[in-house]
């Protein structure tokens, strides 16, 4: 048995040795750097943390490491040529980006995609929402220390990517839609394969939930962590599941329906506390709602053309349009100004990740360092979209 006094004396010795560092130890604010090369920042995000011991006093995000000047590129490409570029912003939800862009240009051109194209667009976009949420769940759980969900979600996401690959040849940056509709008709057996996926996937959501929803470690790590109120969300412009988890029942698919979402029956899941756990629940529920939407869309898939009449050389009349959609991460908006030529005069992308990331500082204040990881995960940002 060791003498407690002896240990104490030992400590005093160490403190004496470090006496020259006394000013440093006395400081109650410590600035440390996290990233940009950090496995838990989901890409090249650099966070400068101001700490008081283990507690976060505030933080500053340093972004732009992945800036490619997408908006500038847009001004130097024709409307059609710019279409594939949008896939490379939020590359885990490329189909949503394409939908937003195509619909915005269609508004400028004053054309509408035919019903069949709209249905296929909804199916692919909702599949993409599931894929995006799966990737979020796997990596978010991994950050917090649960390794298994990552394997489950990646295993199941593969099935969605297979459908994409069969449809258009690409898995991630799909370039699935064209201005005015779709380039490709669906392949033989498309409906059946999508339905098979839904039947396969429905029990998988329960499987994910079994692993996490009542898991004590998960609950302890996420409940009351990174809470943000509805008022703060609105003031900061935060949208998507983060806003809904704070109790605001707002989803652009319902509020200002685009594509043909108004024909489908689905609910907007909301949370109460706006904490990391609620955001988890909201996204799980959203996957179930996406399954509902896809099911209805496949059942009611109409026959008909897949491409509206659009000119080969697109020259939208001079004018400006802002159009936004509910991407998996929040409101994704495009503001396109045409001067009547073949190239946009200005393409502005309003990325949900960029605006949502602004809330990180507020959400992390007063939390522990380990929770910063959880909060970055729960915001579900993609740096390709933050930096553009």
């Amino acid at each position, binding site marked *: 048995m060791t003498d407690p006094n002896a240990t104490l004396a030992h400590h005093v010795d160490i403190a004496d040795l470090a006496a020259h560092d006394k000013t440093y130890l006395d400081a109650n604010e410590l600035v440390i750097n996290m990233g940009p090369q950090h496995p838990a920042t989901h890409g090249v995000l650099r966070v400068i943390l101001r700490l008081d011991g283990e507690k976060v006093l505030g933080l500053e995000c340093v972004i*732009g490491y992945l800036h490619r000047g997408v908006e500038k590129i847009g001004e130097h490409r024709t409307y059609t040529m710019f279409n594939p570029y949008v896939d490379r912003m939020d590359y885990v939800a490329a189909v949503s980006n394409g939908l937003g862009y195509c619909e915005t240009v269609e508004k400028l051109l004053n054309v509408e995609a035919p019903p069949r194209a709209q249905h296929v667009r909804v199916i692919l976009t909702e599949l993409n929402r599931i894929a995006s949420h799966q990737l979020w769940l796997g990596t978010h759980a991994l950050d917090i220390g649960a390794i298994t969900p990552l394997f489950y979600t990646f295993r199941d996401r593969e099935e969605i990517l297979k459908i994409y690959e069969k449809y258009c040849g690409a898995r991630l940056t799909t370039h699935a839609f064209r201005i005015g509709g779709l380039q490709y008709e669906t392949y033989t057996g498309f409906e059946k394969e999508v339905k098979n996926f839904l039947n396969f996937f429905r029990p998988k959501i329960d499987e994910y939930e079994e692993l996490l929803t009542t898991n004590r470690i998960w609950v302890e790590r996420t409940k009351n962590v990174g809470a943000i109120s509805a008022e*703060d969300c609105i003031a900061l412009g935060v949208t998507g599941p983060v806003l809904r988890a704070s109790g605001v029942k707002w989803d652009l698919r319902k509020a*200002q329906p685009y594509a043909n979402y108004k024909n489908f029956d689905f609910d907007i899941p909301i949370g109460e506390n706006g904490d990391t756990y609620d955001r988890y629940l909201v996204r799980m529920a959203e996957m179930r709602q996406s399954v509902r939407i896809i099911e209805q869309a496949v059942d009611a898939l109409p026959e008909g053309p897949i491409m509206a009449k659009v000119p080969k050389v697109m020259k939208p009349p001079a004018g400006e349009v802002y159009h936004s959609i509910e991407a998996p991460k929040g409101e994704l908006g495009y503001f396109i100004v045409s*001067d009547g*030529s073949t190239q946009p005069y200005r393409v502005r992308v309003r990325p949900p990740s960029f605006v949502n990331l602004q809330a990180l500082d507020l959400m992390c204040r007063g939390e522990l360092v380990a929770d910063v990881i959880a909060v970055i995960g729960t915001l579900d940002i993609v740096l390709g979209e933050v930096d553009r």
Partner: protein
Amino acid sequence: MPDEIKPPAPPPPDGDAKPTADEPAILGGVKATPSGSVQADDKLPAEKLAAPAAAPPAKPATPTATSNATPAAAKPAAPAKAPVPAPTTWDSPMVAKLKGSYGSGIEPLTYAGQNYMVVDRSLIPEILQVLRNEEQFDYCVDITALHYPQREKQFDVVWVLYSFARNERIRVKTQIADGATLPSSVPIWAGANWLEREVFDMFGIKFDGHPDMKRILLPDGWKGHPLRKDYGILQQDNEWVQINLGIESGQ
């Protein structure tokens, strides 16, 4: 349905659209002049398409070559089609109220079913405040800008606003000159912070009273503001090659 799947558009029929010898084709025609300055004649190939074999070679960077509203060169293509849609006046109780208090400083317009108002620069802080506090536009969706180098007031700054209570989206637009500043709207919407920083980064428009007016996406030492029309896309590349490799850029 297979009929609908058309082969890719053939190249434009007339040779006029081909780039001239000293004009890079792929990158949209931004070139460095021998003097080292960079000119943006990016709309040139497009306008040549619009006016087949008509005009003599357009002069780059003159006001006519890059005019923004209904370019003169685009007119020959237009008559065959329906009349070009133009913004119409936007009428609503809110607009009438604002018009009542600010008069001709506000021009409410509608285009493609979307409402926006062009507001005089001097009214900006007040209008935004009123829209936020009295008209319930509590969500600042986006702030961005446009550059029209040939105009006296070179920049359009655009606020996209949304109201949860009214489920309504509007845009507020104003014109400012190069070097002029705008009051920051961070006190009105906290979320304007990064959006205004991005406008500064990309266009060089400063917002007075912003808590942290510095670049956001580009490094602090970056030269120029990339989304200005006179910022060529090869500028940075040429400079880097010259400084670091000591040779002429191959681009």
